[in-house]
């Protein structure tokens, strides 16, 4: 299983905080764009497509090209605005 967490603006669009999915045939983070499609509004996939969103794998920033392996936690992160 992989655990996908949504934050802030993107969580509002997703309508959920997190979702657990079987890894299935997904091999890279970008495969989540289609893998999430059955569970979130299409607007989330569109929002992720515009490239301002960032992604983390196991608490480290990662690219959409990063490998996806069983048991990881993926964060779907809007541009940060702390401080």
């Amino acid at each position, binding site marked *: 299983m992989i655990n996908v*967490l949504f*934050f*802030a*603006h993107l969580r*509002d669009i997703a309508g959920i905080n997190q979702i657990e999915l079987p890894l299935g045939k997904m091999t890279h983070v970008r495969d989540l764009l289609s893998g999430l499609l059955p569970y979130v509004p299409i607007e989330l996939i569109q929002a992720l497509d515009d490239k301002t969103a960032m992604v*983390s794998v196991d*608490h*480290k920033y990662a690219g959409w090209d990063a490998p996806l392996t069983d048991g990881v936690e993926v*964060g779907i*992160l*809007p*541009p*940060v*605005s*702390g*401080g």
Partner: protein
Amino acid sequence: MSDVVICEHDFNVGDEYAKVCAAAPKSGAVVFFVGLVRDLYDPQNSSETIDFLELEHYPGMTESLCQEIIDQARQRFPFDFARVIHRVGRIHASEQIVMVAVASRHRDNAFQASQFIMDYLKTRATFWKKEVGVKGQQWLGQKDKDLSATLRWEKNSTERKQP
């Protein structure tokens, strides 16, 4: 004492200053930065006031990013001790939101390291702000100004900071 604190409750600058001095008894210079919630919507030329911010973060990832930022600052500008406190949850206008403290032998490194840490906190650490007020609520995006503040540390990594 932990170098990084992410918490909902407020912090006391006098108490924090005493802790930093105790943790760095050989330091001759202490720099404190405190960020407070301004009462206007962003952009700041707005004249409508906010009631509070809702601060969200990614538990676990935030702490390790903050520690990483402190470690990078220490490599660039060696210091004796640094401490970061960042509040999350509901924070009202004019309340404290973030504190960065650095103690070092000489003042230059304390100033440089505290600015470095603040710049990276703004652009790397997984915090998100939502403004809530008369105009409704809006998530804040990253500011170009903060991005360029961070980039300047990456362009000339060895030069001394110049006016």
